[in-house]
């Protein structure tokens, strides 16, 4: 079949060009390899196509031919192609092959002469020689010259002598009917295994093997079957440690020597890294990310560059954005739906904005007649709007809670601050419902004195609650029955100070009424002072006299001293040495504060002028000659020797009711009517260091513990709060204040009054509280 077709072609080509066929064939044949090299040439692709879907019988035929003609096709493909070419050329003779081969010689030598002579020898050459040499000489135009330069020429390249080499018939063939027919037949091009090698101007037939290789390449496989991409792994190195080394050579010494070059390199790198010339990958990655983030950050294109500037104008006014107008809804449309049209019958106030008119298009909407008015009003609105910026920005409930929780977490737990009074241990009995205004414990902690509304001073034994003494104080004025303040002499002299109405009484507290009993120090002191009474000239401020208090218990009477102040006194307190004591008469102006000396029965006015509008309390510094005077809004500290004001403390809110001095003297707490307890640190400032707002009503009394870091406040809400108040001796740490215990329902509220007084035990962490309900209670740790 192939043979027939070949004859047909032959006839066609003969018609165009005669005699040259052989020569051309001879000329082209050696350059096949170059054509195969140019695997991108179209014809080869065509051939591949044809190969892939070509008929089996046809390729079989070709192979047969090849096989017939050659024995060792694998080794020398060129010869095969040559044979194909011969076949192509349509010569059935066997010797044509020889002709073809012989033509090589022609190329080297002269053109198309003495073919027969050389053939034999050449064939051997071909068989033995490498094909490259032959190929070079087939196409004389050279490798780098594109074929299209010769596209319109009749020749292609030049021979040794500089003569033009004529294009072979194949060139023309491409445009001839024969070529076309070949293509249609499938003998050439896409449907056959023959391809036109343009470069070498010849037809190349691809062997089945080559076709397969091409097919494999197209499939992405290795061209040769012999290539095994996954050879079986030879387990010459296993993960198991071998007993003996693979190579039993001794390790070369070089392996044990540190590489100098490497060391130098490392040093260089390290230095570079240190200086930041090079960076580790992680660093680089981080930088890159940062950069990306920076680049990708969304920002307001039209915002002001300086944000602060936008909040605050140059003139100091801050920018307040105008409130936004609500967007118009359907009702505001120029062409509203029917339901939004104003209904004449309906006088619905809500529909005030509803449009009266409807326009079928925007073009017909007239100008808004109230535009100017509205703008003006809007401007007015803005002009009058309060230009206040709320500074409470982050004051949300969660934030507050969080902050409180943080503060709480910082404070130590109450359980770490033991001991402090916790539970009720004893009650000291009074007549029912008598408001107990004041309690005081003797410095040893054995006796408790109370002063109550019925004008009686009682002394109890702390440990047994036994009432040992009971004095009914003689009153100068019937209306002023209340004992407002009692105070036990701090120097262990057993003198009890009690304020009732206009008078201050000095009582020999633990004097025995039994005959023959020794006089107590207090009794001695008082009797000494009595001796002075006769000789002492009457002071204008205060009248000292002998007083006899009726004792309700135990029989017998004790003589005491009475100081008549002429004004209603409210409070008294001792100097720490137990000789001086101070009294407060709130309405006394410059005589509001008086300092008395027991041993001399003398009275002094420390101030010439009235200090503060209403003196409430007055206490001595525990060690220095300083007198603290609390008026309604201020606490003033006066140095009694230097005669000067040392400090002036301003209460934040409400008027001061009570005051207590820390045993070291540098801290003061006051209780105010505004239900606050304020802690002042004299070293810090004139303002409160801490304001404690735990009570809900007037804080009636405050007290410091003499030994433990405790203080307490008693309030009209019936509660007594106990705090840990640690004062540090270094000047850097501020006092630590921790609420530790709320003595709830310490006292029942009776006539708006709750707990009236609180007093710590001098040694134990115990607290005595008294209230308007007539109870005096002891809370112990």
């Amino acid at each position, binding site marked *: 079949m192939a043979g027939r077709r070949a004859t047909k072609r032959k006839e066609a080509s003969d018609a165009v060009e005669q005699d040259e066929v052989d020569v051309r064939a001879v000329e082209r044949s050696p350059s096949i390899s170059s054509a195969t090299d140019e695997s991108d040439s179209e014809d080869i692709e065509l051939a591949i196509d044809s190969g892939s879907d070509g008929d089996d019988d046809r390729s079989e035929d070709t192979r047969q031919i090849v096989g017939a003609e050659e024995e060792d096709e694998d080794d020398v493909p060129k010869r095969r192609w040559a044979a194909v070419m011969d076949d192509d050329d349509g010569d059935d003779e066997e010797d044509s092959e020889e002709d073809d081969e012989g033509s090589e010689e022609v190329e080297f030598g002269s053109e198309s002469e003495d073919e027969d002579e050389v053939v034999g020898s050449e064939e051997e050459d071909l068989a033995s020689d490498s094909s490259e040499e032959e190929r070079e000489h087939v196409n004389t135009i050279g490798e780098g010259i594109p074929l299209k330069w010769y596209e319109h020429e009749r020749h292609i390249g030049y021979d040794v002598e500089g003569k033009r080499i004529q294009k072979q018939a194949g060139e023309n063939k491409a445009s001839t009917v024969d070529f076309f027919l070949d293509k249609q037949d499938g003998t050439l091009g896409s449907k056959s295994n023959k391809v036109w090698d343009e470069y070498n101007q010849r037809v190349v037939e691809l062997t089945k093997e080559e076709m397969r290789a091409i097919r494999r390449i197209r499939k992405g496989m290795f061209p040769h079957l012999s290539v095994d991409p996954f050879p079986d792994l030879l387990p010459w190195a296993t993960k198991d440690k071998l007993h003996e080394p693979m190579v039993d050579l001794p390790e070369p010494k070089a392996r044990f020597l540190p590489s100098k070059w490497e060391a130098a390199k490392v040093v260089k790198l390290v230095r570079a890294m240190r200086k930041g010339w090079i960076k580790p990958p992680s660093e680089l990655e981080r930088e890159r990310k940062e950069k990306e983030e920076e680049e990708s950050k969304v920002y307001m294109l039209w915002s002001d560059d300086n944000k602060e500037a936008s909040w605050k104008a140059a003139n100091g006014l801050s920018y307040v954005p105008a409130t936004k107008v609500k967007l118009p809804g359907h009702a505001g449309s120029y062409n509203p739906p029917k339901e939004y049209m104003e209904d004449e019958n309906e006088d619905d106030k809500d529909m005030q904005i509803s449009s009266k008119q409807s326009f079928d298009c925007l073009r017909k909407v007239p100008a808004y007649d109230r535009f100017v008015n509205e703008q003006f009003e809007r401007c007015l609105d803005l002009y009058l709007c309060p230009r206040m910026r709320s500074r409470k920005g982050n004051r949300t409930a969660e934030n507050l809670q969080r902050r409180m929780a943080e503060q709480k977490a910082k404070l130590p737990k109450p359980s770490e601050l033991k001991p402090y009074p916790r539970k009720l*241990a004893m009650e000291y009995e009074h007549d029912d419902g008598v408001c107990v205004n004041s309690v005081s414990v003797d410095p040893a902690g054995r006796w408790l004195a109370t002063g109550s509304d019925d004008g009686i001073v009682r002394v109890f034994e702390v440990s047994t609650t*036994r009432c040992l003494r009971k004095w009914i104080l003689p009153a100068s004025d019937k209306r002023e029955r209340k004992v407002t303040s009692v105070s036990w002499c701090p120097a262990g002299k057993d003198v009890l100070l009690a304020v009732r109405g206009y008078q201050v009484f000095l009582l020999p507290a633990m004097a025995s009424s039994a005959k*023959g009993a020794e006089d107590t120090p207090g009794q001695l002191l008082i009797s000494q002072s009595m001796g002075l009474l006769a000789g002492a000239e009457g002071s204008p401020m205060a009248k000292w006299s002998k007083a006899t208090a009726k004792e309700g218990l135990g029989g017998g009477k004790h003589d005491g001293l009475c100081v008549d102040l002429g004004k209603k006194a409210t409070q008294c307190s001792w100097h720490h040495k137990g000789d001086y004591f101070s009294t407060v008469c709130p309405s006394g102006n410059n005589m509001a504060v008086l300092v008395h000396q027991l041993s001399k029965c003398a009275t002094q006015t420390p101030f010439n002028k009235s200090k503060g509008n209403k003196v409430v309390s007055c206490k001595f510094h525990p060690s220095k000659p300083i007198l603290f005077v609390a008026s309604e809004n201020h606490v003033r500290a006066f140095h009694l020797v230097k005669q000067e004001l040392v400090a002036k403390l301003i209460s934040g809110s409400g008027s001061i009711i009570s005051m207590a001095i820390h045993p070291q003297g540098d801290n003061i707490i006051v209780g105010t009517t505004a239900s606050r307890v304020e802690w002042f640190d004299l070293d810090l400032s004139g303002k409160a260091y801490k304001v404690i707002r735990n009570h809900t009503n007037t804080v009636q009394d405050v007290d410091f513990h003499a030994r433990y870091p405790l203080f307490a406040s008693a309030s009209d809400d019936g509660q007594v709060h106990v705090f840990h108040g640690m004062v540090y001796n270094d000047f850097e740490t501020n006092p630590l204040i921790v609420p530790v215990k709320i003595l709830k329902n310490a006292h029942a509220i009776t006539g708006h009054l709750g707990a009236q007084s609180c007093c710590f035990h001098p040694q134990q962490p115990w607290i005595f509280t008294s209230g308007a309900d007539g109870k005096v209670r002891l809370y112990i*740790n």
Partner: protein
Amino acid sequence: MSEAGGEEDGANQKVLCRFSTNLPSNFKVPETDLALPSSSTRYGLSQTVNALLKAAGVEDAHELGQEDGKQRVFDFLVEGELLRGELGRHLAKRGLSVEKTISIEYFFAVEPPEPTTTLDLPDWVGSVKVARDCGVFSGCFDGTVSVHDIAGARELRCARSAHADSVSALELVRATEAGNEGAPEVLVTASKDGTMRGWFVEPAEGKSDAKRRDGRRKKKVTKEDTGGLGLIQVFEFVGHVGGIESVGSSPAGCRFCSGGWDQKVRVWSIDEEDLAGARANASKRQRKASDGDDGEDEVGGAGLQQVETTALDGHKQCVSGVCWPEENLVCSTSWDSTVKCFDVSKGKLVSNLIRDSALFCLDAARGGGHGGSLCLAFGAADGLVATWDPREAHRSAGAPGQVALATVGSYKSHKAVVSAVRWSPNSPFHFASCDYEGLIKVWDTRSSMPLHTLESHDGKAFCLDWFEGGLVASGGSDSKVATREVRVSSAVG
């Protein structure tokens, strides 16, 4: 029996027990292993033992049960602690296996005391002391000392104003060294006004004049008892400043210690010579008094003045309780929350225990605690009663005076201030405590729960004494002395 129990669930689990006892042989049960349900309680075990005794053939009903046919009540000691609640839980709490045989010791339980007998007194009772011969001494807050009969009608035998202020402590001190049983005893009364006096107690009928004088003096004492007693002041102990809170006598006699508000423990001694002199002095004065005007026999007519032999420093606050458990050892508690033990002969602090609340009372187990060890019990303001062995602490702490907390047993049941503790006179395991709620609690050191809680006073109970016969007397702010029998068998383990 036991293997059946093994398969049951936890509630019906059986525990192998073996009973043992120190009781007389007729109360002994056969020493065999018994499988008892783990849920059995003290009551159940008690019934079991009773049943076993019956089975063992203790015929005498009077011996086994009491007269009215009631069964004996036993208490059970499991692994050193009294059984309270279910047996299984008791074991689980102490991490003991229920699979081993558990040895349970049983003895007679302290039976609930009989109803109280109360003695009315003129004022709050601050101190009470029971003596064998004389009866119940009670000191009141008005300074009077009264003596009541210990048995029978508990009639008032004597009442006398002894101090100007409340009597805070009463103690009987033998005037001779130990061994002399018939030695004269001196009643030491201490008051909150700082005075301390020694009194000789003698029958009033022998001295008609004394009796007559007593009758004259005490107008409120309407009925003069035939078996009346007279208190004759023989000593005036001078030294304390401020109130005295507690007095403790030496076990050997002749010496006693006292503590009070001057923060010192003072040691005093009296001997027979002093006593004889003082008696002569007192009788002379009495004769004079009976001859002359009787009005001069005021409170605390002068006795022979005595000064303390040693003053032991150490406490920083009021010394609230003292006791003298051994010849040279004086222990004291104070409001400064410490228990201190002093060596009297050297006047040195031996051991020190720091607590966290003010201590109000102290007592030492008489005749030593269990196994001859020294055991102190003290009560605190916060309601905690604790026991402590200072010598054990001394051993563990090394140097004397060091703080040791390890060997403190605490008994928590009181809700108010514990005002007094007292060891049982014949058991090293039992003590009683009273508090400001008027309750007396009887404790066994081997149980953290009180054995009995006795409501004794309407107000506060201030003082407590446990006499050898089992008589517990307490005084309180209801002006009464409550006495009741709390019998603790001496065979308690």
